[in-house]
């Protein structure tokens, strides 16, 4: 669905008030990856790492400085019009709806802009009205909608013409828990049921954990990770935590291959590497335990570590 080879984007920036110096900023620096049809892919990176620039090259907004891009078999910046019919895009902070008009009017206008056949438009709209619960505010001018309502409107706008591929830039930014949940459920639904390929950039690791099977991480314009989330955890989350509930409060346990991180009454937290069952049997040999559980390192911590130390 997406093929990217050695893709780069340079910007020339002029700085200084009187003596203007030219600086070349390498926003994206020779990245390569492939995305298959039906994937739900997370694209992660700190601010200014090159996430949005990549998405903009994939959607035909920016012309690459070097490298090759192919999206749905098309070169995005050269065959922009054809591509636009086949993809949907939603940029969290950019409004694509008509600000002063009722939400429904925006959908009507987009139907004509995208030349969506009437029956397909009706079916799609009816479905999104139901799934995203648009009915209570579909006649309200967009400027009066809450952020959560507006984002649901924007998602509908991006999907109305039935794209094969959906690009989302920060889809859940600023949303409350309930609204976030609704957006995530919607994305899973269109991905599983309709087979829409979804690529999303986010800072919200909850989005990544709940939605994505695969993760790309970009930093300083280069891809530093491309793979499954579980693999990332395995590789970078070396240390896990074993939580043991003892029969009664005790001194910190001394077990080989683990160190006690925290003690709270009869409960102790042990950091360890390697096999959990081996550690558990060693603990059980040393003392009587009531219960135990293994805590995986959370993705947030891993990503924080990658950003600060690199791979």
């Amino acid at each position, binding site marked *: 669905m997406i093929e990217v080879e050695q893709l780069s984007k340079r910007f020339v920036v002029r700085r200084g008030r009187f003596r203007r110096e030219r600086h070349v900023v390498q926003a994206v620096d020779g990245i390569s990856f492939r995305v298959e049809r039906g994937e739900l892919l997370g694209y992660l990176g700190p601010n200014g790492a090159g996430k*949005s620039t990549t998405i903009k090259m994939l959607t035909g907004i920016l012309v690459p400085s070097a490298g090759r891009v192919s999206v749905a078999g098309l070169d995005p910046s050269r065959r922009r019009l054809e591509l636009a*019919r086949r*993809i949907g895009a939603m*940029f969290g902070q950019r409004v694509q709806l008509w600000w*002063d008009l009722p939400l429904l009017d925006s959908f009507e*206008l987009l139907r004509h802009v995208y030349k969506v056949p009437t029956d397909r438009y009706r079916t799609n709209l009816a479905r999104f009205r139901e799934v995203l619960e648009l009915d209570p505010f579909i006649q309200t001018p967009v400027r009066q909608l809450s952020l959560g309502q507006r984002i649901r409107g924007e998602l509908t706008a991006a999907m109305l013409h039935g794209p094969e591929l959906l690009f989302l830039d920060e889809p859940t930014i600023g949303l409350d828990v309930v609204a976030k949940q609704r957006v995530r459920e919607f994305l899973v639904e269109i991905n599983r049921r309709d087979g829409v390929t979804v690529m999303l950039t986010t800072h919200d690791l909850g989005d990544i954990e709940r939605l994505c099977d695969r993760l790309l991480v970009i930093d300083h314009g280069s891809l530093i990770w491309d793979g499954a989330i579980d693999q990332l955890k395995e590789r970078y989350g070396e240390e896990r935590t074993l939580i043991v509930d003892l029969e009664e409060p005790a001194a910190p346990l001394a077990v080989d291959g683990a160190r006690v991180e925290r003690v709270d009454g009869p409960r102790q937290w042990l950091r360890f590497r390697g096999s959990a069952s081996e550690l558990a049997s060693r603990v059980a040999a040393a003392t009587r335990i009531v219960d135990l559980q293994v805590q995986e390192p959370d993705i947030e911590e891993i990503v924080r570590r990658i950003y600060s130390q690199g791979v």
Partner: protein
Amino acid sequence: MVEPILVWRRLVGAQIRSQLQYRASFTLDVLGSFWISFVDFLVVLTIFHNVSRLNTWTVHEVALLYALSSITFAVTDLLIGHLDQFPQKIRDGSFDVVLVRPRGTLFQIVASDFATRRAAKALQGGIVLVYALGGVTIHWNVWRVLVLLASLPSAVVIFASVWVMGACIAFWTTDGGEFTNAFTYGGTSMAQYPFDVYARWLRRFLGYFVPLAFVCYFPVLYVLGKRDPLGLPRVLDFASPAVALAAACVAGSVWRFAVRHYRSAGG
């Protein structure tokens, strides 16, 4: 060919509906715009209060020139006047949205607004036209009617091309609105007077290079049966449609070139 016009009507219709949501502001804008253009024509009358002729031009002849360029400019302004807010779209990156839709970028920008409030200028032009026709003697024949009729759409296309090219500057400077205004609003003021009153360098640059002399000056010369006081070839009297076509082609190419240099905005 028809389908884009229908879509344009829908999009523009939506904009007009939006504008009408702010009725008071809308009415004040229309009144203000009418008053400004009315005062503008007082300047012409004031000049002729002091002199009886401007080179070979009488007040009614100048009024004819003035009225035609006013009306055609007002029509251009109605259709694409909102291009002067285009640099804002470049600066805040909202041009992104235009690029992910399956329509021509220029088409979408043109259809993204409609400056209804500027219609007042066309009304003023109409009034001046009535005044002009009351005082000039034109020996009408088929050719004169044709030249006059062809000059109207040509003028709109020339104005629009200048405007579009000016807007392209924003792709590099991310601003430049005022610079563009010098050619659009400044250009129309110039086209309202006979070109032979201007200094030679100004005439060359704004008359022939930025082809504002073809907006109304040459067609009006022909319709009035006047010889160009500068002695330029008479074929220029008929050149407006060709100049308009050429200007549109140049503007279209510059626009396409500029869009490929769009840099978007952060985030």
